[in-house]
């Protein structure tokens, strides 16, 4: 399919238009309470963004990097500190700078990828998770010496207007995630993405074709942690509206890993499908627990069952559909609208 503008085809434009109309015009009108924004839509956007970051490094570049939450923490605390200490800094500037700061950590902790792969790399990247969160926690400067444990973040002020309503937060996050997703699409469809995938599939052959493993891997780490950093800042400022190192635990890193794996490695739309599932399934479980069992089921049992289901799904997908939910979606779409020349990845 021939791209019309940048890497986007006619089909892309239609999809984009529809999604945007739904997201901007339809959703705000059908959403019954702000609960939906606060607890579902906004975290959906933030986690998807982190998922995009992880998809880039794991799904496209094939580097088993855990520790997304560490980079999210870096981004969140960087944003907080920039707004705190640089008077009058525009929010977007602080946000982008936070991304760069997270990037720097990404490059640093991505260095082991030049020597090791697989489970070895996974363990090495866990270091970033533990070290970054520890560092932020221990050195009071990052938390502005707040001893309460949970810091309230500043208000987001854009062009002198403070954003307070959930709707405003939602639209802001939507805008940022949309732009970054479009950039990611350009990257993965262009020469950058091909280099990443070449490194993933056969790095020796990639090198023999002139790809610099060092540059490509570090670049992937940089971009991926940039995305995680921005996701972290948005997570803190629009969703949690507070900052605490404990929110960026290894559990969050695993959640994002699940998003990428269950959603489908190596696809962009897989990230969104995966995030939707990770967020909505617990909601479903809750409903089942309260409506069907009439609240007789303990909350901890529900969360244990949640864990069991995610774990079991991981196993089931790896055995039966390693390409994830995105592939299932693609197969379903092909049934209804068969196309001769499907893209392999979006």
């Amino acid at each position: 399919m021939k791209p019309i503008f940048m890497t986007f085809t006619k089909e892309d434009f239609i999809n984009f238009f529809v999604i945007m109309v739904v997201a901007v015009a339809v959703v705000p009108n059908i959403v019954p309470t702000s609960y939906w924004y606060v607890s579902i839509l906004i975290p959906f956007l933030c986690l998807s963004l982190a998922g995009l970051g992880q998809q880039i490094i794991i799904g496209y570049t094939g580097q088993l990097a855990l520790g997304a939450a560490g980079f999210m923490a870096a981004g969140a605390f960087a944003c907080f500190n920039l707004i705190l200490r640089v008077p009058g800094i525009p929010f977007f500037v602080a946000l982008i700078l936070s991304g760069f700061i997270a990037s720097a950590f990404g490059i640093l902790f991505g260095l082991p990828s030049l020597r090791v792969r697989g489970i070895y790399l996974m363990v090495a990247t866990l270091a970033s998770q533990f070290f970054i969160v520890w560092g932020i926690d221990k050195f009071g400067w990052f938390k502005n010496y707040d001893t309460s444990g949970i810091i309230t973040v500043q208000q987001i002020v854009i062009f002198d207007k403070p954003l307070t309503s959930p709707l405003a937060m939602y639209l802001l996050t939507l805008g940022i995630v949309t732009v970054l997703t479009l950039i990611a699409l350009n990257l993965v469809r262009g020469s950058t993405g091909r280099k990443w995938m070449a490194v993933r599939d056969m790095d020796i052959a990639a090198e023999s074709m002139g790809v610099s493993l060092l540059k490509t891997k570090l670049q992937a780490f940089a971009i991926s942690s940039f995305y995680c950093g921005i996701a972290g800042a948005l997570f803190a400022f629009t969703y949690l509206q507070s900052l605490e190192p404990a929110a960026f635990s290894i559990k969050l890193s695993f959640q994002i890993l699940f998003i990428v794996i269950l959603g489908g490695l190596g696809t962009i739309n897989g990230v969104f499908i995966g995030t939707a599932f990770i967020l909505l399934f617990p909601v479903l479980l809750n409903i089942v627990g309260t409506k069907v069992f009439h609240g007789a089921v303990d909350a901890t049992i529900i969360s244990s069952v949640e864990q069991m289901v995610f774990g079991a799904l991981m196993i089931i997908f790896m055995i039966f559909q390693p390409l994830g939910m995105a592939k299932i979606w693609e197969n379903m779409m092909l049934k209804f609208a068969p196309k001769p020349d499907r893209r392999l990845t979006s």
Partner: protein
Amino acid sequence: MAESRRFPIGDPVLELKNISLRFGGVKAITNISFNVLKHEVRAIIGPNGAGKSSLLNCINGIYKPQEGTILFSGQVLDNISPNVVANNGVSRTFQNLALFKRMSVLDNILVGRTLHTTSNFWEVGFGLPKAMKEDRKNKEKCEEIVKFLEIEHIKDAPVGKLSYGLQKKVEFGRALATEASILMLDEPMAGMNVEEKREMCRFILKVNDEIGTTIVLIEHDMGVVMDISDRVVVLDYGKVIGDGVPDEVRSSQAVIDAYLGASHD
């Protein structure tokens, strides 16, 4: 083979001097020296395990020989690693196939255009005109290669699903896309039937004839070797046992012994 060539054979573009390679206690290559001349088709032959692929891996920087030097157009490269060698005009295919299994045929070949891609990720990410234009040009070049190799019908197929022979062709196409001046082919016709082999020979000769690419070819099929190569070097047990034009090599006693399995002491 000696009709007037468009690109007459020139000076050495590749010189191996006293190359030795060991893996732990196993000597894969012992004191090998030979050269490859510009615009020629140089075949490397020898029984299985003679060290042919290892030799290619040394040239291309995947293995680092413990002894010896390799000169690229008379120059020693500072840090021989595969992408440095690629930047110096050498490309290759692999004996056991090294395609990017999860990418399409066209995308595989496009990776071959890496050295002709100067856009950085900012330009790609923001879809700037420079990146888009370059992408379009590279795609056109790859479409030409796809056409040349007669694989248009599968250009969007994921390579993992293709037959062995087709995959070999794609890998050849990927190496072609680099527009390297030296193309090293490791058994490009293995697993192909007579028809496919003839086609591959045609492609190789065409590339050598019309573009002037120097070809280094590892090949088992004697017929092919005699037919298309200008000079042949014969390896056995990691050593050179013959080096010259096909006729010379074919009648050398040492070579005949090696292939007919005379007892080695």
